């Protein structure tokens, strides 16, 4: 489908790209696609046949009837049978073409989405942290869809080639002079279509860009409406958005101008050509070389071919978008799967959690953890305490095997090591599904975990554990979400439980109850809990005090308060505002804790 009018040097490489795209897309779906092309070919052949039928109608039925006054009933019936028969077969061809073109495009699309999603799942946490969620979603959804859009017009477009070849041959055979005249017009119309598509696409692309810009600006402006209103800037904002909307309008009007001209030309040129054909035809008829019916059938065929010729333009216009989508999908699929950080975790023989000289750094940044050594015997509950940026969360993520240390060694006991994240993630689904996350777990065990996590409020929800939560479900407070996330971990009976400030959004009484439950029911479990509330810290067996990525102290809370001045300062600063916050803002004040801890971090030992 190379551009026939302008065989430039760039064409082959574009063609090669297009071929590669189609090969890649159609791998494994050839049968569907060939069926669509088959239907399209039937349609193409019948289109030419229907022109032949018009000739029969004119020459065998109408002309005899109106010149000699007679026509055999059998002839009329035969010709009418052809009219209807050809139309039926042609319609069937269209149905097959459209249905199978759709099936091809959507099955290919489904396959791409599945592979991309599978790749996301295969990639470990460090890979995900380098991507943005929006980008990943758009690659699996919109880009996969864009990649396959070209498959929709493709069978039709390929049948246009068939149609052109057959109709040219037929016209040339029927009457060489008339045929040559008609066939000479095809390249002109195709060329016109291509120029049109290219010019119009420039405006459509510009309009698409402006629409994106407008949408972003409108979002920003409405999001910031409080600022806009409180500074009295409504009029200025309206003008600013108006400028962008004006550019969108101008791009659209440019497209309208191109479109109106070319659409009119694409309609007008075949019509003008037909009138010229009439003159040529008159000479041929006078010379006895052609019949009136042949002339009429040429006219008819010409009008039928105008639209299909445009399909070639459509495919060429879809191609760049499909290529762009395909390339973005390929980027995901071609990126090698990174090794799982969990493979670096050693197995500790005695059930203790051990860290030996553990370093962790982000690319280019300073060390978040700068040589951590610690040993936490099985069954201990340890509070991890430190200022913002001390490396508490990183430490937990390392032990959980979500990320791997830059150097050093970590040992964990056999069994699950489960982390309850700082920001609890609830999927769209029932409470129960959120606890099991798809694992077959007995109701009794789910109930036990819910009770241990002090999440009994779930039973009071409209449908109990079957209540939908998450994005479109009932609204839950931060504390409620945390307790569901905790039950999710507990139900799996982990050997090591890692809590990343998991109880921060609970009121102190509930928090104490949760911690008491943990101690009572799961005596053999090792717990590492990032904590920033004195009451939580006080409940732990030991405290691991981190300062700037190293263990500054490891021991009992009281001992640290007495012997480590930095620790005492931190705890005091933190008691001071934290308590006030709890009192003033109730359950929703989780985030503020970090602020006050941060304030304390100024004073270090």
């Amino acid at each position: 489908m190379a551009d026939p009018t302008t065989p430039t040097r760039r064409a082959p490489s574009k063609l090669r790209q297009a071929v590669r795209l189609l090969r890649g897309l159609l791998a494994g779906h050839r049968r569907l696609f060939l069926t669509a092309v088959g239907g399209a070919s039937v349609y193409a052949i019948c289109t030419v046949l229907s022109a032949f039928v018009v000739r029969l109608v004119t020459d065998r039925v109408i002309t005899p009837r109106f010149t000699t006054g007679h026509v055999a009933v059998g002839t009329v019936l035969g010709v009418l049978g052809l009219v209807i028969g050809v139309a039926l077969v042609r319609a069937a061809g269209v149905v097959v073409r459209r249905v199978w073109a759709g099936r091809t495009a959507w099955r290919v699309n489904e396959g791409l989405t599945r592979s991309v999603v599978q790749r996301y799942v295969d990639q470990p946490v460090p890979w995900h942290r380098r991507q943005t969620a929006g980008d990943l979603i758009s690659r699996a959804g919109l880009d996969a869809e864009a990649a396959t859009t070209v498959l929709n017009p493709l069978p039709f477009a390929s049948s246009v080639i068939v149609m052109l070849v057959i109709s040219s041959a037929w016209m040339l055979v029927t009457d060489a002079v008339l045929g040559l005249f008609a066939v000479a017009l095809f390249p002109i119309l195709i060329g016109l279509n291509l120029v049109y598509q290219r010019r119009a696409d420039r405006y459509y692309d510009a309009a698409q860009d402006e629409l994106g810009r407008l949408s972003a600006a409108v979002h920003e402006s409405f999001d910031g409406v409080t600022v806009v209103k409180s500074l009295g800037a409504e009029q200025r904002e309206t003008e600013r958005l108006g400028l962008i909307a004006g550019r969108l309008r101008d791009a659209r009007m440019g497209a309208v101008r191109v479109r109106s001209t070319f659409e009119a030309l694409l309609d007008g040129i075949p019509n003008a050509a037909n009138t010229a054909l009439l003159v040529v035809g008159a000479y041929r008829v006078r010379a006895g070389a052609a019949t009136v019916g042949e002339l009429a059938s040429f006219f008819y065929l010409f009008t039928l071919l105008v639209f299909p010729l445009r399909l070639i333009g459509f495919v060429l216009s879809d191609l760049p978008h499909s290529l762009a989508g395909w390339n973005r999908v390929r980027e995901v699929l071609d990126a090698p799967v990174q090794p799982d950080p969990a493979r670096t975790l050693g197995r500790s023989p005695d059930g203790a959690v051990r860290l030996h000289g553990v370093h962790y750094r982000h690319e280019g940044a300073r060390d978040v953890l700068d040589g951590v050594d610690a040993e936490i015997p099985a069954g201990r509950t340890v509070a991890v305490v430190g200022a913002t940026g001390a490396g508490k969360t990183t430490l937990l993520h390392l032990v959980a095997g979500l990320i791997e240390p830059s150097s050093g060694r970590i040992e964990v006991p056999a069994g699950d090591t489960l982390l309850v994240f700082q920001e609890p993630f609830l999927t769209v689904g029932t409470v129960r599904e959120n606890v099991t996350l798809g694992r077959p777990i007995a109701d009794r065990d789910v109930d036990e975990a819910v009770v241990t996590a002090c999440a009994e409020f779930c039973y009071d929800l409209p449908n109990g554990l079957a209540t939908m939560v998450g994005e479109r479900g009932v609204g839950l407070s931060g504390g409620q979400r945390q307790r569901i996330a905790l039950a999710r971990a507990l139900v799996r009976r982990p050997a090591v439980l890692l809590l990343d400030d998991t109880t921060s959004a609970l009121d102190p009484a509930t928090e104490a109850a949760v911690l008491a439950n943990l101690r009572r029911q799961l005596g053999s479990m090792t717990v590492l809990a990032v904590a920033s509330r004195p009451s939580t810290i006080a409940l732990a067996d030991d405290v691991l005090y981190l300062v700037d990525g190293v263990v500054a102290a490891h021991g009992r809370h009281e001992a640290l308060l007495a012997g480590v001045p930095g620790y005492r300062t931190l705890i005091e600063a933190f008691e001071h505002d934290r308590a006030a916050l709890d009192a003033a803002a109730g359950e929703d004040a989780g985030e503020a804790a970090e602020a006050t801890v941060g304030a304390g971090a100024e004073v270090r030992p």
Partner: protein
Amino acid sequence: MSEPLGRWSAVDTIGRSVREAPALRRGFGLTVLLAMAGAGARIVLPILLQQAIDRGLRHGRVRVDVVVHLALIGVAVVAVATLAQRTAVARLGIRSEQALFGLRVRLFEHIHRLSIADHNDERTGALVARVTGDVETLSQFFAWGGLALLLDGTLMVVVAAVMLAYDWLLAVVAFLVAAPLAILLRRVQAHLLTANDAARARNAEMLSQISELVGGSETLRAYGASRHYADATAATARRRADSFIRVGTIGAFLFPLGEVFSALTVSAVITLGVWLGPDRGLTAGAMVGFVFLTYRFLEPIAEFTEVIDQTQTAVAGMRRVLGVLGTPIGPPESADPQRLPSGPLDVYLANVDFAYPRRHDAEAERGASDDEPVLHQVTAHIPAGQQVALVGETGSGKTTLGRLVARLADPTRGQVLLGGVPLTEVANHDLRRRLVVVPQEPFLFDGTIADNLAFADPSATPQRLAEAVEALDLGDWLAGLPAGLDTEVGPRGSQLSAGERQLVALVRASIVDPAVLVLDEATSSVDALTEVRLGRALERLSRGRTSIAIAHRLSTAARADRVLVLDHGRLVEDGAHRDLVDAGGAYARMYDAWVSATDAARTTS
């Protein structure tokens, strides 16, 4: 199919749209006339063919001169008609883009003037969708469906008229045979609509599943649930493909149905024409011409049914747009505003009640108990220059009270007076120069720090901006930024930390140099150094101004001249920190909670 009509019927909607966007109607009659003239290019061929066959190509007596003469007329008609069609298409496209531009600007303006109550988080997305998505639907409608209505509609009218002129009986028969097609197509269309809705729902389901999988990737990996969710996502991808294939399958029958009916109608025309024949004064040319006209007449019908679908979508979009324009704007400007006195201003809250209003448009069903009263009978006088802290639990009404003072909404009962003038009688621009709100999560626009500061006063020079930064003792902070005032803040200020965004907001407020400040204290985490800077800047900014701080930390309240304690919308206590602590009321209980929490932590040590 039975789509609820909402508050306006389709006819009303279109009528109101024309009133909101008068550019749509201007010159519409001429556009239709031009389109009719444009249809001439498409009917010239059948007429020419008839004339040529009857006058120039009669059996045995071909008159080339007559045909040439006819062809010349034909070319001239095609040229004129092509020009007319071009003009009609351009006029419709340009007019509609201009009208939609006007509509967008009206929407920007109106939405910016809506009360802050209409701008809560969940509504922002809907409002953005009105300006982008819904207006876009209209633009697409005018570019494709509306254009098709215009061109195909006029074509059918013109072709029908010519058919009737040739032979009314044949024409009526043709219309009657074709009539069931319209009914059949509506049927197919109805199925198509349902299938389309289902497909859209499946699409949304898949995208939300992908976004869960991506957003929750760490949790899913930590709990070994990735495979389960990848399978679930693959299943949604399959369901989506199935539903779109169904749409394609139904849609595949639309055009073929038209083709089959064309064949049937043409057969009927030929049968009748040949049977009645010359006795009715028909000629061979007229018969051939009539067959061509019949094909032409039925060509656009299948497209029409798609247009009806598009029209419904466009009307629905327009109805939503009108719904927004019909929402009364926020606090209205007084017709005869009073000037605020110069110098410091006091604030007087006189018996203030407030309830968030019920919503006005289609989203109304979602909000359940919106008109819960938020404030009851709040009365307080804040003398000029006093620093006041509003304290209370989440939902106590302290944020709302701040908004009323800033006149982001008006009280449902009672009055707010500023410098003795009721807020309802203060001109907006006057108010915005004298009172500034610093919101909890200050919103920054994508641009430089200077852009964001200048938002308060577009005429401010860079020097003035730098002085403002210096005046709040933030020179060292600014110097530490990569490009000083020209540092890009990123979308929503994402390149700055939460604390730095607050710093920018404070400077921005200081540039206005207001007499009254309303500060919504932040709860988000701030690093230690920024915390110190914020405190200093805030102290400098409030010096000499009346300030009302919505306090989330008791330490802030303790520093204020006076504390107002709100509980469930009522002002329950009012006094200095010390006095309120001694009085033993609600504030004292909060304070006790703090003290006891502190003690609890202390006794463990």
